[in-house]
C-alpha cells in the first residue's frame, strides 16, 4: 500500500514551498528540544541514565528470544491470548478475526505506531467497522486521511484553522479555531465513542517480561479510556518492545518521558497486568496481545543494524535533525519518518526501489545520535545503509556512470592530467567572481543552489612535483 502518489522529489518540493509547514515544524521541534534539555539538565546526570538505557536495550535485544518467551508464558498464564504475527498481513488478519468474532462495530483506538505500520484502520474501515483514533493529533490526521508527520505530535503540520475546517462537517456547525473550543469539541465527541466502544485497541510502550505487564504512556488520558471501558482489548506491540522487569522499567520511563516531551513522567503512565480480575468493576475481560515481527527478526540477525531495535520511539532524533526540520515528516513518504524512520523503514520494508531515498535524507551531522537516549549510532547506520543500497545495485544509472568515469580517470594518471588541463580551460564560460556558477547537467544540479571553486591554475600534482624539485635542489 502507498500513502502517496507523488514522487520523492515532488514531496520534497511541496514541503519546501509550504511555509506554514516549515515554520510549524521548526517551532514544534524547537519547543520539544528545549523542553527535553530542561528535563535532562535537571536530572544532572543524563549521560549515566543514557548509558543505563543503552545497556538495558542492548541486553534485551541480545536476549530477545529468552525475554519474549518469558513474556508469552507470563501473559498466557494469566489468560491473555497471545498472537504472534510474522507479517503485517498476519497481524491485520488477527485483529479482523477478533473484531468479526465479536461482531464489533465500534472500535476505539489509542496511539499505536504498529497499527500505522500495518495500515490497520484502512482494513477495518473496508470491513465496515468504525475505528476511531482517540488521541487528538491522531484523530485530526485520521479525518484528513494523512499519515503522522511526527512520531509524538502527529498533526504538527496542521494549522488551527485547518483543524477547525476538518471538525466542522462532523460538528454540523461552525467552530471557532481557538484551542479550547477545538479541544472541547473533541472531548464531547470522543466521550460518546469511548462509552460506545466494543473493542479497544492500544499500542504498547514497554512490556515487562517477568510479570507479563503492558505499559502505556499518554498525556490526554485516551489510553486509559481505551484500556478501561471496552469489554475486549487488543494491544499491538513490536516484538522488541520489552524490558526484563520493573527495575529496568524505571530507567526506560524516565528516558522516554524526558526525551519525548521533556516531562518527568507523562500525565498518565498505565501498567496493565491483564486481564481484569473477575471481581473488578472495570477493565477488559478479554485481552489479546498481538506481537509483530515484520522483518524485525531479520534486523536482529544482522549485527550491523541490530542497534536499530534499541529505539524507544521518543522522537528526540526528529527534533534535532536539520533535514526533518526543513521538510517535516510527509516528504519522507514512510510511516516512520525522521532519522530513525530513515534507518528502520528500508530494513522493515525491504524495498530499495521504494525506500532507497531515505538514508540520503540526512546531512550525517550526527545530531540524531547525540540526541538518542539509548545511544543508537543513527548517522553511522545511515552511512551503512547507503553502502548496502549501492552494493545491492539500486543506485541511479547516472550515478553509476559518474563513478565509473571517476574510477577510470583516477587509475589513468596521464588522462587525468589532460582532463584537468582541459577543465581549467573549459570552465571559463561558467565562472562568475572566481567561482563556477553553472554548467551542463549533472553539474547544474549542484550549481543551481551553490557554487564550486574554480579548477586551480596549478593542479595539486604540479604543485607536488615542483615541491619535490625545490627540495632536491636545496639539498
Amino acid at each position, binding site marked *: 500500500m502507498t500513502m502517496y502518489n507523488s514522487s520523492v522529489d515532488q514531496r520534497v518540493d511541496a514541503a519546501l514551498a509550504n511555509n506554514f509547514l516549515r515554520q510549524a515544524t521548526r517551532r514544534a521541534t524547537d519547543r520539544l528540544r528545549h523542553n527535553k534539555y530542561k528535563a535532562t539538565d535537571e536530572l544532572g546526570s543524563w549521560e549515566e541514565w543514557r548509558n543505563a538505557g543503552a545497556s*538495558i536495550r542492548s541486553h534485551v535485544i541480545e536476549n530477545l528470544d529468552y525475554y519474549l518467551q518469558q513474556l*508469552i508464558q507470563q501473559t498466557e498464564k494469566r489468560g491473555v491470548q497471545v498472537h*504472534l504475527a510474522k507479517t503485517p498481513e498476519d497481524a491485520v488478519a488477527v485483529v479482523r478475526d477478533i473484531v468479526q468474532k465479536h461482531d464489533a462495530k465500534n472500535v476505539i483506538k489509542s496511539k499505536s505506531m504498529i497499527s500505522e505500520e500495518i495500515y490497520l484502520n484502512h482494513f477495518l474501515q473496508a470491513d465496515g467497522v468504525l475505528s476511531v483514533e482517540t488521541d487528538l493529533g491522531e484523530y485530526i490526521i485520521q479525518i484528513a486521511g494523512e499519515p503522522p508527520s511526527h512520531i509524538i505530535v502527529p498533526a504538527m503540520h496542521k494549522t488551527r484553522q485547518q483543524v477547525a475546517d476538518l471538525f466542522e462537517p462532523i460538528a454540523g456547525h461552525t467552530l471557532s479555531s481557538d484551542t479550547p473550543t477545538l479541544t472541547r469539541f473533541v472531548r464531547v465527541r470522543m466521550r460518546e465513542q469511548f462509552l460506545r466502544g466494543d473493542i479497544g485497541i492500544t499500542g504498547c510502550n514497554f512490556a515487562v517480561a517477568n510479570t507479563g505487564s503492558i505499559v502505556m504512556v499518554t*498525556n490526554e488520558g485516551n489510553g486509559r479510556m481505551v484500556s478501561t471501558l471496552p469489554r475486549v482489548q487488543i494491544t499491538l506491540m513490536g516484538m522488541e518492545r520489552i524490558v526484563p522487569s520493573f527495575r529496568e522499567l524505571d530507567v526506560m520511563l524516565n528516558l522516554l518521558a524526558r526525551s519525548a516531551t521533556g516531562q518527568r513522567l507523562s500525565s498518565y503512565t498505565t*501498567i496493565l497486568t491483564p486481564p481484569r*480480575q473477575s471481581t*473488578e468493576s472495570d477493565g477488559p475481560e478479554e485481552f489479546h496481545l498481538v506481537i509483530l515481527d515484520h522483518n524485525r527478526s531479520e534486523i536482529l540477525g544482522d549485527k550491523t543494524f541490530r542497534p536499530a531495535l534499541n529505539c524507544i520511539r521518543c522522537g528526540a532524533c526528529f527534533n534535532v535533525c536539520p533535514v526533518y526540520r526543513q521538510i517535516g515528516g510527509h516528504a519522507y513518504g514512510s510511516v516512520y519518518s525522521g532519522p530513525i524512520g530513515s534507518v528502520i523503514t528500508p530494513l522493515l520494508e525491504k524495498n530499495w526501489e521504494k525506500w532507497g531515498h531515505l538514508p540520503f535524507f540526512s546531512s550525517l551531522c550526527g545530531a540524531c545520535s547525540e540526541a538518542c537516549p539509548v545511544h543508537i549510532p543513527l548517522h553511522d547506520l545511515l552511512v551503512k545503509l547507503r553502502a548496502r543500497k549501492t552494493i545491492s545495485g539500486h543506485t541511479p544509472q547516472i550515478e553509476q556512470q559518474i563513478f565509473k568515469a571517476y574510477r577510470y580517470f583516477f587509475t589513468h594518471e596521464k588522462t587525468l592530467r589532460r582532463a584537468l588541463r582541459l577543465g581549467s580551460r573549459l570552465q571559463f564560460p561558467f565562472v562568475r567572481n572566481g567561482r563556477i556558477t553553472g554548467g551542463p547537467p549533472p553539474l547544474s544540479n549542484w550549481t543551481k543552489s551553490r557554487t564550486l571553486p574554480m579548477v586551480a591554475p596549478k593542479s595539486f600534482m604540479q604543485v607536488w612535483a615542483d615541491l619535490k624539485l625545490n627540495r632536491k635542489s636545496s639539498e
Partner: protein
Amino acid sequence: MTNANDFISQLASKLGRSTPTVPPPLIDFHVPQYRLSNPGERSTIFLHNWQELGGKGVIVKTEDQTVSCLKEWFGDLPLSWIKDNPQAILAWDSLPTLAETAFSTLNWPLARYTMAAPDPRERYSIAAQAELGITGADWGIALSGTIVTNSSAQRGRAVSLLPPRHLAFIEASKLRDNLSEVLEEVSALGSPPSAIEMISGPSRTSDIEMDLSIGVHGPIEVYVIVIDT
C-alpha cells in the same frame, strides 16, 4: 498463527544459538536516583510539583482542616450537583477515615462506584455524568508530582478518569522520592494488580499548534489532599 516455539527458535537462530533455557544475567547498570536529604520535605515537594502541573493540593493534619479546605475548593457546588444527580459524587468503596468523616460532616453524600449499577455500561455512564470522582492512592512520587493507584474489586479505574474532577487522598507515609522506589514496592507484591495508574496532573494535549490545552479526555481539574497526622 505462528507457533510460539517456532517463533522463538527462529529468533534464537538469528542470535546464533538455540532457544535459551536459563535466564540471562542481571543487567549491570547504575543511575543516580533523586533522593531527598530530609524526608520531611517530601510532602512539600510532592505538592509543589503537583501544583506546577496544574493540580490543586494541600497538606492537612485534622478533619477540621480537611472540611474547610473542601469548602474552600468546592463551596456549595456539591449540594447543587446532588439536587440534580444523587450520584454526582462518586467514590471508591472506602476512603481514608479522615476523608469519610469529613464528607459526613459536610453532608456531601458519596455514591460508591462499584455498587452504582449492576451493568458495567450503566456504571460507566453514571461515572461519566458524575461531577467529582474521589479516590485514595497507594503511593505518591515527589519528584514528578504523581499519584499511583492500584486497581481492585473495591475501587474502579473509571472513578479517577470519567468525571471532570478528580480528588485523591493520600497519607504522607505513602509518598516516595522517585519512581524507582514505587516500582520496587510493586515488584515486591509478587503479582501486580491488573492496573496501576500513575497520574501526574490533569489530562493535557499540545496537539494543535503546540498550544497546551487542559482536559481533553481525562479530568480537567485534579485535587490532592495529603494527610499528615
